[in-house]
């Protein structure tokens, strides 16, 4: 044992490469610190500290006056309504589009014949629409809709409807494809129409997964609709933005608490719904 211990170097043999790698990363990231205006001193700047200190100081006690709670209940319901209405629109967008882009439902794919290429070309525009809808984040859609249709929940509903429509459409078509497509294809091959093949061959197979994914997305939509309020799209977020602007910390902390409760609630409801429908 003793002789072996003498052979093992006392220093860490990997120290040098590790040091080199660390240095390399630091050098690469160094301009980032300047670009991000990284300056911890700002946090201790007396003026900033005074504002923040005052603001944080007002976080407690919570604002629990009846008037404010009534206002909060209204915006909470508004947030839930925005998420739900937005999801309804999203499904209305996603179902027809996903029906259009699902390859297994293509009649022209079945056999040799005309229309194979035109059928494939026809699937491109809806696929592109779905991609366009979901590649712009919902809060950016909300910002644009606030400018187009004015402040308020309508912008939030439209933003969720479009972004989530794009996401749902893509996932729906993936669910249709990944499930057992043989019933639908068999129906098509024996001469049934596209819609009938979808309704009797594909929809029943895919339904549980569709429901569970949609419910999960609804949960995300609740969170998103709070966030979107920050750009003026109604609901709890807009209220939080207002309270922050007025530096009333008690209101902010109450709203944060309600937000956390809402997220937990949406989580529970969504888990429950998925269990019931699974």
């Amino acid at each position, binding site marked *: 044992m003793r002789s072996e211990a003498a052979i093992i170097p006392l220093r*860490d043999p990997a120290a040098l490469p590790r040091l080199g790698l660390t240095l390399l990363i630091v050098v690469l*990231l160094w*301009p*980032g*610190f*300047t*670009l*991000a*205006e*990284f*300056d911890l001193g*700002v*946090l201790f700047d007396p003026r*900033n500290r005074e*504002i*923040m200190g005052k*603001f944080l100081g007002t976080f407690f006690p919570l604002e629990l006056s009846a008037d404010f709670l009534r206002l909060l209940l209204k915006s909470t*319901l*508004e947030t*839930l*309504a*925005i998420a*739900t*209405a937005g*999801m*309804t629109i999203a499904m209305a967008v996603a179902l027809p589009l996903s029906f259009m882009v699902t390859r297994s439902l293509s009649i022209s794919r079945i056999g040799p014949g005309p229309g194979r290429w035109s059928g494939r070309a026809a699937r491109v525009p809806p696929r592109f629409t779905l991609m366009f809808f979901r*590649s*712009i*984040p919902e*809060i*950016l859609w909300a*910002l*644009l809709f606030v*400018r*187009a*249709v004015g402040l308020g*929940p*309508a912008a939030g*509903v439209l933003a969720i409807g479009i972004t989530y429509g794009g996401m749902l459409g893509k996932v729906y078509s993936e669910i249709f494809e990944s499930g057992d497509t043989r019933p639908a294809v068999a129906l098509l091959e024996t001469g049934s129409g596209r819609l009938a093949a979808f309704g009797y061959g594909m929809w029943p197979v895919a339904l549980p997964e569709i429901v569970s994914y949609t419910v999960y997305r609804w949960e995300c939509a609740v*969170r998103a609709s*709070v*966030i979107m309020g*920050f*750009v003026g799209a109604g609901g709890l977020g807009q209220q*939080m*933005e207002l309270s*922050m602007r007025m*530096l009333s910390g008690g209101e902010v902390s109450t709203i*944060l608490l309600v*937000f*956390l409760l809402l*997220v937990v609630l949406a989580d529970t409801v969504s888990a429950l*719904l998925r269990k*019931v*429908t699974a």
Partner: protein
Amino acid sequence: MRRAHALVVMLLLLAAWASFAYLALDFGQLFSAEAGAQMVKYVVSFFPPDLSADYLAQTWRGTLETIAISAIGTLLAAVLGLLLALPASGRFGIVPRVIARLVLNFLRSIPELVWAALMVFAAGLGPFAGTLALAWHTTGVIGRLFAETLENAPPEPARALRFSGSRPALAFLYGTMPGVVPQLVAYSLYRWEINIRMAAILGFVGAGGLGQMLYMSLSLFQQPQAMTIILAMLALVALVDAASAWLRQHLVD
């Protein structure tokens, strides 16, 4: 089971109807010819995007700023996350574990955008507020992932070092860390990818980067400039997607 399904469908329809009723959305007015024409006019005003050299240079700077915010925010989060993950993985007993988990849960449950709005008060308008906001939220996410990694790491190497007389800190550094570092790096890179997307948006509340530029140009009704920034955002996200897909394919296997 069939009846439960019918009940759920009825409830969902009712919820959807109630939502539209509660919001009192006037879709007739929203989709009227007049509103439609106005909407089309607004959309058309975004084209063509402003591609003058001067503005492109500004957008480039904004893009770099966005990347810097996400990178530094993620780096800070990785360091803080590891520091919190040590107690959260139960290394120092049950009480620090519960406290650290509570802190991580708190950091994580407040969304980035809310953190950003708060940090604008603490650090002023600009990219630093965005960096801090990302750092707080990401610490919560990453800390929990790190803690789980540490908990799942095999204890034998560190134990062997301890039994042969090494100090606890060194046993951790040489017994546990080498095994978990790849996983920690993978988690950090994965969060960085998400944070680049987030950093582009955080600016809406004044936290720097492309988002702040976009918010300002939209407020000043400079739609062509806004279009340039939207295109830059889409390009950035597409690039990150492609890069991460490529890296995953070539590095992971």
